[in-house]
């Protein structure tokens, strides 16, 4: 049992949080809700001092905190693509998340699931793309992918890695936020935000933004952690207090959404949840699988009402 908890926790541990153990939650929240970016998406920062500048613009409480954060980011961002490194749980979970996306999106967009690139012709945005570990498989599956993340460092790592393979080099990575994309009037066939909503300050507003980015008749997919007794035991008590995998305060259990709440919030943003599944971990095989058990990690697929 303990090992099961442990492994579950591994996946719950969100990279965006896990990478700054000392960062107070509200700082992270600010990062996700405002995410103002000084540099245009495709021009790389010209020198390190510029990063310092943009750090200040990211409305950090103090510059020293930002420095600390930067150091931690740069230390861990290198390991985004190390499948046995700190992001191992996310890598392990990835095929399962993609299997869900494949089956739901193929069905919804009437694509043939028996081909190598079923998403050909679909415009997809990966909100909170991190190092691009979801964006790259989506691109290999044929989608035209835009990956956005509030952290410049993540975007740089993602761009660097995607550039190595001609198939994934087509991904457009932007250091921006969902809100900002809405202002730019960008629209996508599918909007995907996995393991992100539990870190945003205002989930309702966030869902409205995701909805605004979705074409009418398009799809929105969100995954997160349930607010259940089991998730409290695994994500908070075990991970933060007993095992010290995560600094205390990393996840605020009270800010997790239950599936019912997520469905309601999405409904208010004109997205009807059509399918939901849980992710469960098998400690014997070390693999995740889809299940009906949505008590800890779950994923929801919704479609936006047509005109």
């Amino acid at each position, binding site marked *: 049992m303990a090992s099961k908890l442990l492994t579950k926790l591994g996946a719950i541990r969100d990279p965006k949080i896990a990478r700054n153990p000392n960062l107070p939650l509200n700082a992270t929240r600010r990062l996700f809700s405002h995410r103002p970016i000084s540099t245009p998406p495709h021009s*790389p*920062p*010209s*020198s*390190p001092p510029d*990063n310092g500048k943009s750090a200040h613009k990211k409305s950090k409480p103090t510059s020293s905190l930002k420095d600390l954060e*930067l150091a931690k*980011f*740069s*230390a861990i*961002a*290198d*390991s*985004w*693509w*190390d*499948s046995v*490194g700190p992001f191992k749980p996310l*890598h*392990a979970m*990835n*095929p399962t998340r*993609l*299997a869900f996306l*494949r089956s739901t999106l193929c069905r919804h967009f009437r694509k043939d699931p*028996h*081909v*190598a690139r079923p998403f050909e012709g679909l415009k997809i945005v990966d909100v909170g793309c991190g190092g691009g570990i979801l964006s*790259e*498989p*989506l*691109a*290999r*599956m044929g989608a035209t992918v835009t990956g956005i993340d509030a952290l*410049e*460092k993540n975007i*740089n*790592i993602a*761009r*660097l*890695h995607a*550039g*190595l*393979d*001609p198939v994934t080099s087509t991904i457009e990575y932007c250091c921006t936020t969902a809100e900002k994309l809405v202002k730019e009037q960008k629209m996508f066939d599918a909007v995907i935000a996995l393991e992100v909503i539990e870190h945003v300050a205002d989930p309702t507003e966030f869902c409205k933004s995701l909805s605004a980015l979705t074409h009418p008749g398009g799809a929105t997919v969100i995954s997160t952690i349930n607010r259940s007794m089991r998730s409290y035991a695994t994500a908070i008590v075990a991970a933060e207090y007993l095992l010290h995998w995560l600094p205390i305060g990393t996840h605020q259990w009270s800010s997790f959404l239950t599936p019912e709440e997520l469905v309601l919030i999405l409904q208010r943003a004109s997205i009807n949840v059509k399918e939901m599944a849980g992710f469960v971990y098998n400690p014997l*095989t070390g693999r995740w699988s889809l299940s009906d058990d949505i008590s800890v990690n779950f994923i929801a697929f919704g479609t936006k009402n047509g005109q």
Partner: protein
Amino acid sequence: MNRAITRKLAAAATNAYQSKVLRKNLCGGANASAATSTQINNHIHEDKQSFTHTVHPYDIAIVGGGMVGMALACSLATTPLTKHLNVAIIDSNPALGSKVSIKKEDPPDPRVSTVTPATISLFKDVGAWQYVQQHRHAYFDKLQVWDYTGLGYTKYYAKDVNKDVLGCVVENKVLHSSLFSRVEDTDFQKTIHPSRLTLMSLHPSSSSTVESSSSTEASYVNGCLAKLELSDGSSLYAKLVVGADGAKSQVRQLAGFKTTGWNYSQNAVICTVEHSVENQCAWQRFLPGGPIALLPMGDKFSNIVWTMNPKEAADCKSMNEDDFVKAVNHALDYGYGPHPKSSLLASADMFSWLGGNLVISANDSFEVPPKVVKLASARMAFPLSLMHAKDYASRRVVLIGDAAHAVHPLAGQGVNLGFGDAFALSRIIAEGIAVGMDIGEVSLLKKYEAERKPANVTMMAILDGFQKAYSVDFGPLNILRAAAFHGAHHISPLKRSIISYASGEQRLPLFS
């Protein structure tokens, strides 16, 4: 890993720009290195336009185009999710690539495989079995095993396991050309490199400098591709390298996979013989020096696999044909000891408490194999050994078939395990592609290893156990062995599970 990438890029950058500013930036922090890398990407992009000889990487490089390598290619070519892959097959065998036509009248090849029902159904799945059926092949539904002491024998029937056949004996060249013909009939993109692998680099050494800055080279430098150098001086890149190059696998050695194993102090003498009547049963008799097997090949031909010590094997190879035929007939009949008695009263009593069915029907009685009238091929001798790789997979490299596990040909299981590997790997690659994974990803390849290793180890242990049990000539053991025969003969469920396992079903004998 990524730290290494950054370093490589840094090397590339300094090489290209010789810029102090860049170096300073690199020292200044990770953000700066990211900035540098973007510039490098631009630089690479410019280069791609100026270089005309951009090397296109392959998705998969199969090293070894033998039966198992070709089975992988065939399975990839006929699976919807993998048929688009761009595959290189590296094999110095000149016969590969030119479509060899095998005529039914051709003399039979001594190298044959006993394919199990499980393998037959895999071949049917990929559409290759129809090509096998156009050539010489022999199904058999009966197997008689006995030993020289005359104490016991047993017969296995396909009907015991609700199957039509126990297996099919096919010449290796037929299996190979059938798979190749099947691949040829698809529009699969494959390139055959008639060469040998000389060098494989997965992770460029830190001292290596980037000479050409094509995007392929950059991907390789960053660990996204493996680089293979061939004996003809050419080199190629692939996302995944499959070692299907046999027991002495070059891929396995270059990848640094460790192996365990041992040599049996025994050789197998292999040849084809002719009878006056068609043989329709598989026969195996345990002799003091090791087992002799007589496998039906169709058209009155049979294949002999005779295990003995190296000196005897050398004698067998050098003696004149008539003497050899005599020796074979001797070994399959009265040589070394009497026929087992058909009435098994004493031993039947021994096992009656186990609830076995003691009624022996007429055709269940001991039979003598058909006489060999002449030798139909050259005699070959192979040393027997057992070898198992500790790992089948690492990043961008995976082993299949004898490269991962070599067994002696006691039950003809070697190639079936190899086919099992090839089809399993193809399926797992398809599963990876379904979820957009990089096919060289270690987590994907380890899934293949986790699936195949237990199956292969179990079969190897069974075969090794058989080998040990039958290579010892010691009175009490012989009696035990004979007793085991009677046991196996009469206890139907046990017998069923033994055949089931030998015919390629993934169930453990005894415990199912």
